[in-house]
């Protein structure tokens, strides 16, 4: 074995610790409020606000390029998600759904953005908060439209003969009020978490192999080439998960507003 100089001293295998970057708080200490994660969150929020403000600052009938992009995004949220899933009623939710889509998309995108390379959504708190908002939203609009009794009757009592209802009502309850918010948040969180982990394994694994034995260098290179391929795959996951989260939110709202199932 040749004595190989260490190329990059990084811990391998990657662990959950890698998801908790050190605090950047100027007042020092171990504050969780100012880290790379929260800084990214602020950047994403500011970027979205500034982008739409600038794009719509002087709206023209024949839109310029920036306005066209912003209108396409909103048009997609309105026609592609809100009215398509909810129907004419969905227009009320177009603003929220579009914002939700763009917010998740931008936050997810940090996962493959150079120098950031981790998405805030790989921390469970972020998807959980978004899913909580969805949960409150669809229950609120349902109760507001139908009243408490009719809303719960609509969502808990399926069209079935009375003697199987005791079997079905608990299933409906768990499925609608417990599994929905859980699966909504875990789906987004797990995708972003696993994506980051995968990229770490392939990048750091390359370094680990080349450090262990110089003869493994070709495999290290293969590992890094695969990292690029996985980054492209990640891009697909990023867009898809933002879309799925928004579409499911719209579908829950639609279900809450529906007259009868």
């Amino acid at each position: 074995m040749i004595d190989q100089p260490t190329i990059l001293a990084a811990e391998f295998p990657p662990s959950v610790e890698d998801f908790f970057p050190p605090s950047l708080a100027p007042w020092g200490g171990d504050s969780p409020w100012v880290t790379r994660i929260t800084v990214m969150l602020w950047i994403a929020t500011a970027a979205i606000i500034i982008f739409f403000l600038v794009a719509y600052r002087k709206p023209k009938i024949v839109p310029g390029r920036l306005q066209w992009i912003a209108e396409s995004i909103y048009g997609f949220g309105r026609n592609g998600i809100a009215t398509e899933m909810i129907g004419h009623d969905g227009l009320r939710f177009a603003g929220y759904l579009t914002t939700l889509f763009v917010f998740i998309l931008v936050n997810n995108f940090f996962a493959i953005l150079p120098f950031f390379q981790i998405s805030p959504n790989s921390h469970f708190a972020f998807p959980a908060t978004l899913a909580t908002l969805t949960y409150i939203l669809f229950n609120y609009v349902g109760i507001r439209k139908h009243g408490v009794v009719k809303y719960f009757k609509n969502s808990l009592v399926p069209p079935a003969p009375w003697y199987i209802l005791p079997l079905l009502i608990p299933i409906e309850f768990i499925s609608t009020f417990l599994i929905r918010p859980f699966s909504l948040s875990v789906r987004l969180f797990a995708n972003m978490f696993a994506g980051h982990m995968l990229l770490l394994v392939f990048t750091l694994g390359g370094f680990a192999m080349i450090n262990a034995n110089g003869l493994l260098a070709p495999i290290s290179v293969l590992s890094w080439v695969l990292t690029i391929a996985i980054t492209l795959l990640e891009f697909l996951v990023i867009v898809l998960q933002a879309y799925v989260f928004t579409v499911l939110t719209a579908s829950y709202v639609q279900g809450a507003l529906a007259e009868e199932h």
Partner: protein
Amino acid sequence: MTGHSPSDPPRDDDDRVPNSNQGMTALSYLIAGILVWGLIGWLIDRWLGTRGIAAGIGAVLGAAGGVYLIVRRLGG
């Protein structure tokens, strides 16, 4: 703001999204069914001191209930 008005007639391809969403609903019914009635069965097991019979029956019943719900709510 874009060229479409909200009263656009539904397009032909618009059942693509509800379909993927129906898949998730179906899955959640199935899981919820097995989970709920499996759990109730397990509680009965603990109460009667039987060893897993009620939990097994519960899980099967729950799965049946889940399938029934999928057919009623999502079928035709």
